[in-house]
C-alpha cells in the first residue's frame, strides 16, 4: 500500500469519525431542542409544572405540621417524650428539638418534591417516549435516520432534565421561602456530585425502560402509572429512607429493593448533605451512596445500550416496529 493510500485511508477514517460525532451531537441537540423550546412555548406549563405541584408538597408539609402541633401541645402539657418533663429547661430543650426535627422533615419533603419531578419526567417523557413515538408514527423515521439511537435517547434526557429543572428549582426556592426550610451545605462538591450522578443514573434507567416499553406495548402506559406511588413510597420521597430500618421485618427488604431506583440513594445522600446534625434516620453515609449511584449509572447506561439494540432487532424481526395500539 502506498503512502498516499495510507494517508487517504487515515483521512477517511478521521472524517468518518468526525462525521459520526458531529451527527450524534447534532442529534442530541436536535432531540433536546423541542423539549427546551416547548417548555418556553407552552405558558400553561409554568402554572402546571411550578405552582400546582407545590400544593401536593404543601400537603405533606402540613401533615408534619399537624404532628408537630400535637407534639408541642403534649410538651407544653408537661410530657417530654414518654416521661414527664423534669424541668422548664428540659421542656425548652424538647421544644427546640421538635422544631429542629420539623425543619428537617419539611426539608425532606421539599427535596423529595424535586426528586418526584425528575422521576415523573423519567417515567412519562423518557421511558414511555419511544412507545409514544411508535404510536404517533415517528419511530420509523428515527429508525431510518443514520444517528445512534443512544444519541436520540440522550437528547430526550437532556431536554427532559432542562424541562424538569424549572420545576425542581422552583420547588426548592418555594421550600425555602414559603415553608421556611433552612438548608446547610457543608460539602458543596459532594452535593453536586451526588445530584448529577443521581440524575445520570435516573435518566439511564429511563433510557433502559424506553426500549423495554417498546417490548411491553400497551402495558407501558399502565406500568408508568404503576411506578408512581409505589416508587414514591419505596424511594422515601416524603420521609427519610432510613425509616424503613425502623419497621421490622419488612422495612429493610423494601429499602434494599427501593435502592435499585437511584432516586432513593440520591435523595438520602442529598438530605444528609443539606440537613446535617439532625436525628433523622439515614441508610448509608453519603460518599458510600455516591459510589453505589456511580455503579447504578454505569450499569443502567450499559443495559440501555444493549436493550435498545436487542429490542430494535426483535421489533424488526417480528415486524412490530411500526404497529400501533398493541
Amino acid at each position, binding site marked *: 500500500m502506498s503512502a498516499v493510500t495510507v494517508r487517504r485511508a487515515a483521512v477517511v477514517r478521521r472524517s468518518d469519525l468526525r462525521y459520526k460525532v458531529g451527527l450524534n451531537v447534532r442529534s442530541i441537540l436536535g432531540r433536546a431542542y*423541542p*423539549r427546551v423550546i*416547548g417548555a418556553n412555548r*407552552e405558558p*400553561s*406549563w409554568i402554572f*402546571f409544572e411550578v*405552582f*400546582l*405541584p*407545590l*400544593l*401536593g*408538597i*404543601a*400537603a*405533606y408539609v*402540613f*401533615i*408534619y*405540621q*399537624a*404532628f*408537630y402541633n*400535637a*407534639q408541642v401541645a*403534649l410538651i407544653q402539657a408537661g410530657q417530654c*417524650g*414518654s416521661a414527664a418533663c423534669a424541668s422548664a429547661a428540659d421542656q425548652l430543650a424538647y421544644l427546640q428539638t*421538635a422544631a429542629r*426535627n420539623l425543619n428537617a*422533615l419539611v426539608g425532606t419533603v421539599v427535596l423529595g418534591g424535586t426528586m418526584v419531578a425528575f422521576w*415523573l419526567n423519567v417515567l*412519562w417523557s423518557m421511558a414511555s417516549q419511544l412507545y*409514544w*413515538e411508535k*404510536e*404517533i408514527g*415517528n419511530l420509523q423515521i428515527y429508525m431510518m435516520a443514520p444517528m445512534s439511537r443512544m444519541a436520540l435517547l440522550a437528547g430526550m434526557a437532556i431536554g427532559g432534565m432542562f424541562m424538569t429543572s424549572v420545576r425542581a428549582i422552583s420547588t426548592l426556592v418555594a421550600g425555602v421561602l414559603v415553608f421556611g426550610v433552612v438548608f446547610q451545605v457543608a460539602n458543596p462538591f459532594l452535593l453536586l456530585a451526588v445530584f448529577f450522578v443521581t440524575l445520570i443514573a435516573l435518566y439511564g434507567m429511563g433510557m433502559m425502560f424506553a426500549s423495554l416499553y417498546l417490548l411491553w406495548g400497551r*402495558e407501558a402506559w*399502565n406500568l408508568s402509572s*404503576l411506578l*408512581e*406511588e*409505589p416508587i*414514591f*413510597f*419505596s424511594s422515601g*420521597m*416524603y*420521609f*427519610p429512607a432510613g*425509616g*424503613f430500618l*425502623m*419497621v421490622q421485618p419488612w422495612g429493610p427488604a423494601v429499602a434494599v429493593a427501593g435502592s435499585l431506583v437511584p432516586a432513593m440513594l440520591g435523595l438520602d445522600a442529598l438530605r444528609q448533605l443539606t440537613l446535617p446534625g439532625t*436525628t*433523622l*434516620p439515614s441508610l448509608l453515609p453519603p460518599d458510600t451512596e455516591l459510589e453505589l449511584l456511580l455503579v447504578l449509572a454505569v450499569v443502567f447506561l450499559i443495559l440501555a445500550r444493549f436493550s435498545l439494540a436487542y429490542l430494535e432487532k426483535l421489533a424488526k424481526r417480528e415486524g412490530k416496529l411500526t404497529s400501533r*395500539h398493541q
Partner: protein
Amino acid sequence: MSTFWRTFKVAAWLGWEMDSNWTEPWLFVIYSIIKPIAAAFILVLMYVVFAAVGHVTVPALFDFMYVGNAFFIFVGSVLFGTFQVIQSDREWYQTIRYVYISPISYYVYIMGRAFSKILVSAFAVLITLGFGVAALGVPLGLSLADIPVFIAALVLGLFCLLAIGITLGGVTFLMARHTQTLAEAVPGIFYVFCGVLYPLSILPFWLQDVGKAIPLTYWFDLSRRLLLPPELMAGIPTGLSGFDDLTILGFLALSSAVFFVLSIGVFRLGEYLARKAGKIDMTTSY
C-alpha cells in the same frame, strides 16, 4: 333521555374495556390496589418516622389521616379518569373526531368513560380501609342509622368529582398532551385545602375559607364523622365541628350543584375555543 342513558352505558363499557383488557384480570386487580396501598404506606412511614424521632404518638391524628387518604383514592382516580378521556381519544387513539361528530352528548360520553374508574377505585378504597382495620388497628364503624347519610354523601361526592373532572376536561381541550402533571397537580389542590390528611384548622384562616368553598371538604369530613368513633373525632379541631351531619350534607349538595353548573360552562367554553382554534383533533408529539 334514552340517548343519554345509552351513551352512558356504552361509554362505561368502553372505559372498562380500555382500562382492564390490557392484561389478565388478576394482574389488573393487583395493579388496582397496589397504588393506593403504596400511597397509604407513605403516610404510615411518615408517622412512624415522626413518632420515632419525636418520641411521641398521636394515634387519633393517624386514624383521621388514614381514612381521609383512603377516600382520597376516589379523587385522584376519578379526576384523572375524567379529564384524560379527551387527551387519550385525541392524542393516543386519535378517534376524537369520530366520537365528537356522532349524535351523542360528549359530556355524557365522558361521564360514562369515567364510571369504570369509580368502580375500580371503590374496590381500592375498600381494600385500603380493610387493611387499615386489620393491620393498623384503625377503629372503623358505621351504624345502621348513618347508612343513608353515608350513601347520600358518597353519591354527591362522586357526582361532584365527575363535575370537577369534566371542568378540567374542558381545559385539556386546549392543552398539549402533557396532562400527567395536571393529574398530579390538581388533586394536590384538594389534598391541601380540603382537610384530607390533617384538620382544616392547621391551615391559615384565609386558606380554611378556600377549603370551605370546595365541596370535597364536606364529603371527607362527613365520611370521617360517620366512620370514626365520635370520641376520637371530638379531640380533633376540624373547623366544621359546629355543624351537624345533615347541615354538612346540605353544604355538600349545594356546592355540588354549583360545581355541576360550572363544569357545563367551562366544558362548553373549552370546546368552543378549541373548535375556534382548530384544536379539537390536534396531536402534539414533543
